């Protein structure tokens, strides 16, 4: 690494939270409430984080509509994860979920209500009663189809009340780690001035969200570039289960914009070119409310077998006309807006053309249910990395395993954002201490990344490399995967990742240089892309969201384990799945049908 001689400003905090989406802001509430000195960094104004786009709801077994309990929620989550989820963390999340939702109500969330004034709940895919044996259960708490928007604004508002210190439009570049491996903060760039600064912290909480922008067709925002994952990977910490990406069944064909599963929860269903409600064949019990991986594969199967709709037979249709204008306008108003704007159809009159679209990253930064980032050390596969936490979509706790259930991300943000905040508070109160000394080279990695872009010319354009990456991932690592496609994908993505670390930009200015930001983001995206295809190629089975045509079955004997990908040498390792819950009996892997 080139040594950059540069004076760089520094500020010190008890805790630094990177990310002001649902997870980061929930953590911040906990930290600010405890009176710690906290900085929350976000590359966009907090309410512009992608949590804002979540539509359908927050899963919690409140039992407001009919009998329900956290143990059923836990079973559904374990089964949904195709048994790759860690059962200690899943138990923790499902038990804490009701409290997390009530707290959000107390913060002022404008939830939809029942006639008796309690929170309204709607059905969602994979959420059933009686340990999967009973009927679909209404478990998703919602604010129309704008749940994420309402939740993100509510969390921001609560932070305003508490006087949380936000650093808005700051891009975190890299972690600071000392020779013992302790994390001592981050280096970040202020977009408006173009200046970098050290944020020294006793605890660093990563809450940087997903990286769905590695795919060409995605429900994710432009800013979902996996920055936290890149930072962690560069610092020598592995990424877990990166082969598992959720394809949401209902992205608007051609546009990628999401149509919530809540549409099917409210009674919408999918049909093929013959007008057949095909999910009845693939999932006789849950039908259109089977888990997402199952529905997406069924749709792809229909399309592959020539029963797709439209002139190119490349999508299926989501019907909701029969729900009537009143329900559509009251419970699904934004869906109607999206369909009109992005698909040119009014769903009150016509069905919406949809295709499976990349939506959610199940993998991420390895963490335990306290939010601590964990890595291998001295024979312990799950040794906490001192000073480092991760929560939300960027983390892999792992509650979602190989496939996430709808509504389980928003609840994950609330539960683990809070847990991470809580753990930081307890640790700092238990062991009050001064800041550790920063290593002399604390900012080197970050500054050399900036220096590369400041100088340099004649390299490749960011937009070109990014487009090649997205096309390659889409083609080689989509809904159905084969050994040959994946192997080709690995070599192509390795090359693209190398190119991503060598781009040049024309804009060399400092003030709000978004070309520079996009170049830095692409470095992270390409790392995520490489982790994804390398992990997918190695896993010789089908499980949850990973469907391999050459290994069609789940193989618990050889593959009931988490993947760990290290950037250094693009090396793989594995660790055990925790099948042992905290207080109840383990759910043993069983064949999965809906």
């Amino acid at each position, binding site marked *: 690494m080139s040594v950059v001689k540069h004076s760089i400003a520094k500020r010190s905090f008890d805790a630094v939270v990177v990310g002001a989406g649902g997870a980061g802001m929930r953590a911040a509430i906990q930290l600010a409430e405890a009176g710690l000195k906290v900085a929350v960094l976000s590359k*966009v*104004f907090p*309410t*512009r*984080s*992608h949590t*804002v*786009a979540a539509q359908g709801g927050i899963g919690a077994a*409140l039992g407001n509509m009919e009998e329900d309990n956290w143990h059923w929620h836990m079973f559904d989550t374990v089964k949904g994860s195709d048994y790759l989820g860690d059962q200690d963390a899943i138990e923790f999340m499902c038990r804490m979920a*009701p409290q997390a*939702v*009530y707290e959000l*109500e*107390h*913060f*002022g969330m*404008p*939830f*939809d*209500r*029942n*006639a*008796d*004034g*309690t*929170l309204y709940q709607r059905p969602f895919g994979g959420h059933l009663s009686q340990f999967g044996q009973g009927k679909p259960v209404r478990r998703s708490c919602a604010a129309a189809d*704008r749940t994420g*928007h*309402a939740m993100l*604004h509510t969390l921001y*508002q*609560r932070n*305003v*009340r508490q006087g949380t210190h936000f650093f808005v439009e700051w891009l975190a570049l890299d972690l600071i780690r000392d020779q013992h491996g302790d994390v001592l903060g981050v280096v970040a760039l202020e977009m*408006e001035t173009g200046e970098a600064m050290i944020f020294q912290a006793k605890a660093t909480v990563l809450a940087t969200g997903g990286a769905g922008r590695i795919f060409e067709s995605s429900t994710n*925002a*432009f*800013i979902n570039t996996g920055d936290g994952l890149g930072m962690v990977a560069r610092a020598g910490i592995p990424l877990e289960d990166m082969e598992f990406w959720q394809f949401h069944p209902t992205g608007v064909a*051609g*546009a990628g914009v*999401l149509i919530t599963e809540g549409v099917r929860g409210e009674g919408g269903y999918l049909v093929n070119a013959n007008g057949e409600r095909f999910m009845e064949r693939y999932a006789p019990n849950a039908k259109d409310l089977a888990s997402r991986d199952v529905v997406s594969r069924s749709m792809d199967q229909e399309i592959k077998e020539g029963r797709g709709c439209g002139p190119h037979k490349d999508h299926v249709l989501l019907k909701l006309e029969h729900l009537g204008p009143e329900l559509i306008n009251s419970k699904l108003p*934004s869906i109607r*807006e*999206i369909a009109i*704007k*992005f698909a040119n159809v009014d769903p009150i009159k016509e069905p919406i053309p949809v295709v499976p679209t990349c939506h959610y990253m199940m993998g991420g930064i390895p963490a335990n249910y306290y939010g601590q980032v964990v890595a291998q050390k001295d024979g312990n596969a799950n040794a906490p990395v001192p000073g480092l936490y991760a929560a939300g979509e960027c983390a892999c706790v792992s509650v979602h395993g190989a496939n996430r259930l709808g509504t389980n991300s928003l609840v994950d943000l609330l539960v683990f954002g809070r847990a991470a905040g809580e753990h930081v508070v307890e640790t700092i109160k238990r062991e009050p201490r001064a800041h550790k000394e920063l290593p002399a080279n604390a900012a080197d990695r970050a500054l050399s990344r900036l220096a590369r872009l400041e100088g340099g010319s004649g390299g490749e*354009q*960011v*937009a*070109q490399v990014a487009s090649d990456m997205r096309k390659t991932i889409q083609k080689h690592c989509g809904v159905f995967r084969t050994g040959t496609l994946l192997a080709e994908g690995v070599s192509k993505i390795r090359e693209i990742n190398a190119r991503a670390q060598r781009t040049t*930009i*024309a*804009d060399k*200015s*400092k*003030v*709000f*240089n*978004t*070309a520079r930001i996009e170049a830095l983001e692409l470095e992270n995206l390409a790392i995520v892309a490489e982790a994804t295809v390398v992990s997918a190629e190695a896993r010789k089975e089908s499980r949850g969201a990973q469907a391999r045509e050459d290994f069609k079955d789940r193989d618990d004997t050889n593959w009931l384990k988490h993947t760990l990908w290290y950037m250094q040498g693009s090396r793989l390792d594995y660790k055990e799945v925790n099948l042992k819950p905290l207080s109840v009996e383990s759910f043993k892997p069983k064949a999965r049908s809906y």
Partner: protein
Amino acid sequence: MKFRVYRYNPEKDAKPYMQDYDVPVADTDRMLLDAIVKLKALDDTLSFRRSCREGVCGSDAMNINGKNGLACITNLRELKEPVVLRPLPGLPVIRDLIVDMTQFFKQYHSIKPYVVDDRPLPEKERKQSPTERAELEGLYECILCACCTTSCPSFWWNPDKFVGPAGLLQAYRFIADSRDQVTAERLDNLEDPYRLFRCHTIMNCVDVCPKGLNPSLAISKIKELMVKRTV
């Protein structure tokens, strides 16, 4: 397609200027934002904000052919050429299409944008009837894009004193919430010749809101409440 774009980089430019572009757009580029993203691939020195590309995050508000709107949900085919793009009016420009939103958020924060209810809280949810909840419709959906506030002449003249339509819409959102216990304080906070009463019902705000919200109506409801409590 032809574009004419406001350019200003404080490090290089003594003053702002308009730059013309011809951007090849494909059939699949439906929205204005698609074209601007293409434009940036041609000229990476153009700076603008964007994120969700579906009209929910409020990042890409700009002045499009003279009217404020969100680029990501503005249909490209309906725009007259050359498409003239400028930063939102009435706020300081940082660079190109990026404005400094500090004043806008200051006004938002000034209305205490959070439910205040310091009574002991129940273990579960507080009850709220569907009718009470319905009072929040058309209010809580605001995405803080600032299209309305930056189209309001009253805000242009008094950005530090007049709360502006977005802030006032939110002020009413908390007044209207059956759980909030401090309506009187909220009204006191606005009882001022400028904070609320600079609104002269010019209605630009209603005209531009990309979410179809009606700040003007919310403002008149606040005014009604003020009148009511004086009689």
